């Protein structure tokens, strides 16, 4: 039992794992390499997505906004691989631009919230006491809002658009980074190498930047790749409710809404393809996060 359960995400070679190599030691290495290869494949998949978003619209060349009522509501074909929508616009061209929008808004939002969250987490972890308690409660208050609800409120407050969507995702993401970093800092604070720095008389800022931050960045990177996944889902959810990035900009969630009534009568391509795009992007980001976690922390130390 214990052999299969010791490291579940990268299982020890059993009758199946030993398939690639006869000796158990080599089998284990082969598995490790396979795990790393899996992570590489995921990373390559994400890079491919990034390229698709950057140069895809240029290469494909069709205008995502060009209305052509003559060829409205056509199923997937050679000229329109993802079909056309109710205005005859090419769904594939819209899909490519949609990838660009999801990635741009998601990455910006995650970057902002990880920076702010890391700073807050490091600060509260180092300072402790009542400041930590008050900020902690305030962050819990933010945590009570799912990104979707915050996005809805901000869409009303600022008018719906990329800014309100990005801000909602960034704000609701902050507590997650702050929590991760704070707990990491708390456990670091009592470690010898930090004490040694203190004894040597190093200023707090120096300790923070040179010794604490590098140790917490791994956790932040894991959180950030999961954050991209949630961001893409939240962007689509808000778009679906009509409170996200507004049409005619081709945003995946909005595209799914536009295709919704046609889907019920059997013209499925307008809604299904953007959904598959979201699924692929979210799955890849999640796999990257999990892979990074395993890679940085092969024995599950983070789960303390």
């Amino acid at each position, binding site marked *: 039992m214990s052999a299969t*359960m010791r490291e579940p995400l990268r299982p020890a070679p059993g009758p199946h794992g030993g398939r690639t190599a006869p000796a158990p030691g080599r089998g284990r290495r082969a598995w490790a390499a396979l795990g790393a290869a899996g992570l590489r494949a995921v990373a390559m998949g994400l890079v491919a997505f990034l390229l698709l978003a950057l140069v895809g619209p240029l290469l494909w060349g069709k205008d995502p906004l060009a209305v052509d009522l003559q060829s409205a509501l056509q199923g997937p074909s050679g000229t329109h691989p993802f079909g056309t929508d109710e205005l005859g616009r090419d769904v594939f061209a819209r899909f490519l631009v949609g990838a660009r929008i999801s990635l741009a808004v998601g990455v910006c939002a995650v970057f902002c919230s990880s920076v702010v969250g890391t700073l807050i987490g490091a600060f509260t972890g180092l300072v402790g006491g009542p400041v930590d308690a008050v900020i902690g409660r305030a962050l819990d208050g933010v945590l*009570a809002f*799912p990104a979707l*609800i915050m996005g*809805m409120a901000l869409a009303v407050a600022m008018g719906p658009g990329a800014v309100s969507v990005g801000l909602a995702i960034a704000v609701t993401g902050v507590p997650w980074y702050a929590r991760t970093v704070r707990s990491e800092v708390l456990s670091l604070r009592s470690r010898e190498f930090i004490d040694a720095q203190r004894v040597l008389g190093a200023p707090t800022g120096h300790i923070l930047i040179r010794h604490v931050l590098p140790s917490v960045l791994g956790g932040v990177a894991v959180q950030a790749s999961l954050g991209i996944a949630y961001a893409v889902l939240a962007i689509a959810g808000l778009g679906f409710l009509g409170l996200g990035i507004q049409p005619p900009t081709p945003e995946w969630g909005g595209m799914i809404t536009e295709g919704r009534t046609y*889907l019920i*009568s059997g013209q*499925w391509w307008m809604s299904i393809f*953007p959904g598959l795009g979201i*699924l692929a992007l979210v799955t890849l980001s999640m796999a990257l996060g999990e892979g990074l976690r395993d890679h940085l922390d092969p024995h599950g130390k983070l789960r303390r």
Partner: protein
Amino acid sequence: MASFVVRRVLATLAVLFFASLIAFVLLRAAPGDPARKLLGPQASEQAVSALRADMGVDRPLLQQYGTYVGDLATGDLGYSWRTRTTVTAELTARLPATLELAMTAMAIALLLAIPIGVLSAGRRRWVDRFSRAGAIVGLGMPQFWLGLVLILVFFTWLGIAPAPFGRIDDTVAMPARTTGLLLVDSLIAGDFAAFGNALSHLVLPALTLAIPLAAYLSRIVRRSTIDVYRNDYVRTARAKGASETRVLFRHALPNALLPILTLSGMWFGELMAGALLVEAVFNWPGIGGWVAQSIQAQDYAPVQGAILLGALVYSVVNLVTDLLYGVVDPRIRLATT
């Protein structure tokens, strides 16, 4: 123990205070004029300013916040100017629909997640591969899209699901309202036609909500089952000759399910947020659609009410789990400062 309870309750109240503050500030920061929006562009300036005075939005922000908190303290959630009803009345009317959906989804999710999680913790590695792949896909799908796929397959293509509009067909008489939960009410009334109809309407939205949740929970169950099986007490139980079934049900599972309890605040919040979207997909007459409309109309009170309700549910679920944990595990109630 008493001081532990007081501490936790105070912390929860603090969270609720911050949540109410956030909700209030966010909505008041909106640039539009709610009175103008309500009356439309044709209305005279006098009518608009009269309504503004009526709604109280012409007073200073601090004073508005005071009134709002004072009303909250007496359990008054405010008045919806759009539908001309109190928020409390509207919430009570719509809450059962959302609750019925969320509870069914929760039950389905647990029924799927626990066996899958336990099985994939076991020796057969293909089960784990399969459930891991399933979990990734389940978590990666946008929920509203999953709902649309289910509609496409089961309504449009196969024709075995009812049209995705509401909780029950118009042709079927609603059962007399006792709990507001259609399944329960129709059973009480002994109306099996209504029960079947309501159930058939409930299946697809509940599945839509349940699948991502089950994907997430199954991984948690798997993880904690593996952890629990490493403990000495499992080895002891085995050494004493307990059967594997007994080890699983008596020693491992009760401990392995604790993390589900710990995380329940988080996933219940996700469930409610998910209900918002799923209700929109299936035209479900719950809180979700009402909140979405109120937001667009800048109708403050229902939105604040719904946000507070969400924060309240989230905090209370967390409070209850904390307290339960404190009861179960003395280290927790003594360690927190």
